[in-house]
């Protein structure tokens, strides 16, 4: 009988450091009409937003908890604080950010990354942005990158009202309704026509408060012929009570525009990550999703692309790593509407130490989507028999003039490959980590170098726990 040795996971030190909670305001826990009204008052919402929140709450109470995915029984909304405001205004220089918060972001490498490789950064701490800045040369191109609250009340108010939660409506599902009711923070980006933002913008979301929720809203509009790479990162320290992330991302990719949206998600392992992301792509446009999911206790995450315009396209490249105590249900959705549209999904899932990873997808090709092409490739790696890996793809094809392909594979690390690397002097642990890094190469090679290094470090960190 084969024997396996297990080694404890090593400390996720930089992600797990907790700041002492010293909030400016913490909403009482729970979800009632009074709480929503209070939140709206605290946020100084315009009237339409106040009504929108209350209507969303009504919808939230009507909709059922999904029963097709991982259990979220451990999430009790009566014990979640939906709004926690840190003692800081939004600043545009790191020097003005309170010391403890600034140190947290420095440990995460955000200011350093901004200096080296980013065109602009937004940093959210609990429910509010504490830092937002965009490089002068990018601002001079007419690129708008600001926090959602400022956008909603300032000169872009009409634009926000026109687009906000029109793509992901509160009726979409229970946690979209929750988001509509309690959202706060997040970023607004507008890239003018024919503008090429050659270096990425980044938003980083840090949830420090125990038993709290983070509900940031990201709204990006890339106008005709423009090009943007947006990076999103997130993390939180681990607590022994549930935290919740129910953010929402809405992406509007106009005619012949291109948007790449990259995410490295590394929430703590007490987090319920019930996030919703969606893009609508006009004629000739393209959206590319790059997604690495490493954290969270439970995750539901399926970025969706609506290929509305003729010749529009999407690519989704993802890796999910589920370790001990994690149940990560991830994947992607695409709807082909326009003619000559194309989509490609390429994913890798890794399960270890009792982790559960599920790849879930849908490819819908409507009758109008003549000459649509879609290919899905998903591979799963099982590192032990305590873990679980499921693949649940679905295709709904309604035109004969389509070409749809799908392939999936589930397996384990080849003993021959491990033996080969060990015969060349590698330890078994390093050999297995190298094989897993190679397995996840589809994502790391799509990321900017600094983020690819971070992702590979995360994989090595996770792999430290298994020799088998």
């Amino acid at each position, binding site marked *: 009988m084969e024997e396996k040795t297990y080694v404890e996971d090593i400390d996720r030190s930089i992600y797990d450091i907790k700041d002492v909670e010293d909030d400016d305001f913490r909403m009482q826990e729970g979800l009632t009409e009074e709480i929503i009204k209070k939140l709206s008052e605290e946020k100084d919402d315009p009237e339409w937003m106040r009504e929108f929140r209350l209507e969303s709450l009504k919808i939230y109470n009507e909709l059922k908890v999904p*029963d*097709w995915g991982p259990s979220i029984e451990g999430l009790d909304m009566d014990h979640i604080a939906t709004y926690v405001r840190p003692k800081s205004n939004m600043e545009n220089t790191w020097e003005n950010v309170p010391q403890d918060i600034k140190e947290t972001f420095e440990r995460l490498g955000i200011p350093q990354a901004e200096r080296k490789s980013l065109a602009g950064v937004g940093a959210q701490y609990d429910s509010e942005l504490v830092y937002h800045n965009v490089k002068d040369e990018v601002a001079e191109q007419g690129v708008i990158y600001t926090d959602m609250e400022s956008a909603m009340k300032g000169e872009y108010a009409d634009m926000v009202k026109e687009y906000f939660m029109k793509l992901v409506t509160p009726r979409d599902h229970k946690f979209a309704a929750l988001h509509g009711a309690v959202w706060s923070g997040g970023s607004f980006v507008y890239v003018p026509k024919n503008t090429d933002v050659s270096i990425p913008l980044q938003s980083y979301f840090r949830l420090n408060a125990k038993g709290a929720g983070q509900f940031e809203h990201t709204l990006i509009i890339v106008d005709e012929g423009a090009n943007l790479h947006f990076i999103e990162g997130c993390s939180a320290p681990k607590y022994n009570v549930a935290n919740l992330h129910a953010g929402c991302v809405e992406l509007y990719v106009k005619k012949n525009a291109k948007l790449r949206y990259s995410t490295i998600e590394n929430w703590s392992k007490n987090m319920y990550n019930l996030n919703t992301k969606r893009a609508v792509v006009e004629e000739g446009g393209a959206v590319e999703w790059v997604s690495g999911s490493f954290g969270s206790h439970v995750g539901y995450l399926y970025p969706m692309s609506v290929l509305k315009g003729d010749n529009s396209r999407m690519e989704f490249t993802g890796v999910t790593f589920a370790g001990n105590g994690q149940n990560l249900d991830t994947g992607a959705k695409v709807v082909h509407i326009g003619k000559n549209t194309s989509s490609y999904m390429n994913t890798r899932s890794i399960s270890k130490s009792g982790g559960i990873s599920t790849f*879930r997808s*849908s490819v*819908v090709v409507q*009758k109008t989507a003549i000459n649509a092409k879609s290919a899905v490739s998903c591979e*799963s790696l*099982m*590192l*032990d*028999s305590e*873990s*679980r*890996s*499921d*693949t*649940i*793809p*679905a*295709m*709904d*094809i*309604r*035109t*004969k*003039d*389509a*070409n*749809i*392909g*799908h*392939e*999936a*594979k*589930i*397996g*384990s690390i080849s003993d021959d490959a491990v033996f080969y690397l060990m015969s060349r002097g590698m330890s078994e642990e390093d050999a297995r980590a190298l094989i897993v890094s190679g397995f996840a190469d589809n994502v790391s090679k799509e990321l900017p170098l600094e983020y690819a290094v971070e992702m590979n470090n995360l994989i090595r960190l996770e792999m430290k726990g298994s020799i088998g």
Partner: protein
Amino acid sequence: MTELESKSSKNNKDNAIDIMDINAMPAKTWYWLGVNSAELSWNKNGESLLGEKAFTLNAGRKYEDVIISYSDIKSEFNHDRIVINAAEGSEMTLITRLDMSYNMRLYFDIKIGKNAKLKLIELCKVGDNTIYSDIDTTCDEGGEFELIHMFTGMKRLKDDKKEGKIYSNVKVDLVGDKSDFRYDMGYLAQGNDIFDYNIIVNHIGKKTNCEITANGALRDSAHKIFRGTIDFKTGSSNSTGAETETVLMLGDDVVNKTVPVILCSEENVSGTHGASIGELDEETLFYFESRGIDKAVAEDIMARASIERLSGLIENEKVKEIIEDILKDVLGK
């Protein structure tokens, strides 16, 4: 070869139609896709029971082929149950032919003993009626189950709005080590036909194997759902499962839904699935056109081929003739 004829034994006593939830996937997905299960409208209380057929196969014995034909049924709703107990080392091929204009529900309860072999061939032709086939099989160590399914609907005139419905549920538990399941399906859905399939293979024993191959064509406004689940349970080490589906979309209003699922809680297994969905590819079309064959004829040939390939898996000449007869009937040539 033995041939059995089935006739209805009693009349309908109740006209109430029940909605039965059938063909449920073991792992659900988004409800809006409409694939988690199917609804069957059925008069359960008023159905005629055709009498249970039981086959007890003695150890080590090889039986001659048996054909059961359900073409002469007269009640509106009919139900039959076939029980097969194949003892160690026994072998048999059973062919069922469902070709009728009335509604039929057929349930199989199959136990395949150690090193026994069972081949089940089910030939279904639907008109304006509904056929529901439900197969539940357990395989012991070294047992082999081969299932061949042919599902066809009638050729229809353009303004014919009637529909035939076929529902098929297959569950196979590969309990014994080295047990094996091979499944080949061919189908042709036409007019407004609705074909709804659900296949679940549970790998429980070690070194178990399954191969699922589904090929078919959809014409006119036909709808089809294929759910195929390969489930590697903990302990099913060194098992393999493969699932491939090819769908030829030949009508302007056809709808194809495919959900190929792999569930896995065992490390040392290999599971794959692949699906290819679309119309005739340009290369194939060019091949036909270069030989003077136009697109419509080429599509007929390919639709026929997806079913005719089943004949190559069947030794029994009479069964091959039945397949040919059905094909002539449903293709109209």
